[in-house]
């Protein structure tokens, strides 16, 4: 039980754990782990609340129907799993602005909020544009040796490293 209450595990234990988890999802569900379509489906579900069933006629939602599916449940589980882990180790903390951000850009939540909102827009738009995210391409795709995923993962990091270096330029 002590082990579950630790705040951090070795990255290799975590990585091997995620790898083994992918064996399980391929075997039991015939599915690779991925997270970004769940957000796409949620966005479609919210749009349906306002615009009704004609949202389902959009070409993209014919491919990814706005409903709860396996991957949607997975993302809900990620939220809960992280919550359980954080509560067990006592690392659950309500934070408005991350500490690294605060030491570079100050404690203003509105600035952090605007940048994270814009970042979220790019993240969602880019993930669906590339057909996957850091889990779907970056882990599940690369482990299947998919050419598209290796290239996508490299582009994620090129874009991310470039943006972070620009943001935190001295």
């Amino acid at each position, binding site marked *: 039980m002590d082990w579950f209450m630790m705040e951090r*595990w070795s*990255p290799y234990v*975590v*990585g091997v754990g995620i790898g*083994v988890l*992918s*064996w*399980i*999802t391929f*075997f039991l569900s015939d*599915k690779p782990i991925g997270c970004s379509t769940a*957000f*796409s489906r949620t*966005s479609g579900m919210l*749009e349906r609340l306002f615009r009704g069933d004609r949202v389902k006629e*959009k070409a*993209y*939602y014919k491919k990814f129907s706005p409903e709860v*599916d*396996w991957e*949607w449940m997975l*993302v*809900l589980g*990620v939220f809960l*799993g*992280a919550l359980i882990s*954080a509560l067990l180790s006592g690392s659950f903390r309500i934070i408005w*602005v991350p500490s*690294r*951000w605060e030491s570079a850009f100050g404690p203003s939540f509105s600035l952090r909020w*605007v*940048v994270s*909102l814009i970042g979220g*827009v790019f*993240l*969602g*738009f880019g*993930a*669906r*544009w*590339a*057909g996957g995210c*850091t*889990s779907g*391409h970056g882990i599940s*795709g690369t*482990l*299947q040796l*998919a*050419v*598209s*995923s290796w290239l*996508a993962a490299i*582009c*994620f*990091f090129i*874009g*991310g490293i*470039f*943006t972070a270096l620009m943001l935190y330029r001295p």
Partner: protein
Amino acid sequence: MLRRVHEKKKLQLGIGFGAGILFGFLLQKGGVTNYDVILGQLLLTDFTVVKIMLSAMITGMVGVYLLRSLGLAALHPKPGSFGSTVIGGLLFGVGFGLLGYCPGTLAGAVGQGALDAFLGGIIGILIGTGLFAQFFPTLEKKILNKGFWGEVTWPELLRVNPWGLILPITLGISLLLFWIETSGR
């Protein structure tokens, strides 16, 4: 393959949920649901993200290909094209750097109490995916299929036995991780 299990819809939703709980638990224990850790990776000062991703990749690769050789699993490689994979990947990267979470770790960050993730990131990602659905017909016609190469894997592209790549890749990544470790990042 467990076709009969795969077809049980409610059971599958439960398995997805259970797998998600384990995934979120592991991500949080690995520290990658923290903005500071992800930015440390993108600023190349803390290699936790790469250590987790690469060790997950080689572990997953060996097991999934073994299951496939035994006829117990099928691969689902995503299709790719220059227009979709490269441009989309770079746009994603910009978001990754600005937000400091990716879609999976974003959900985990909300779980450990990060309000920038919840009020900024989640709302942003829902707007971004909604915009993509809106522009999809135009993008598909004009950009997404440029330089299309389909659902190809490295062993198919190079016409070699998968194990002829898996073993050297596993060795190469292990050496890379060892090197990262000895250089103290």
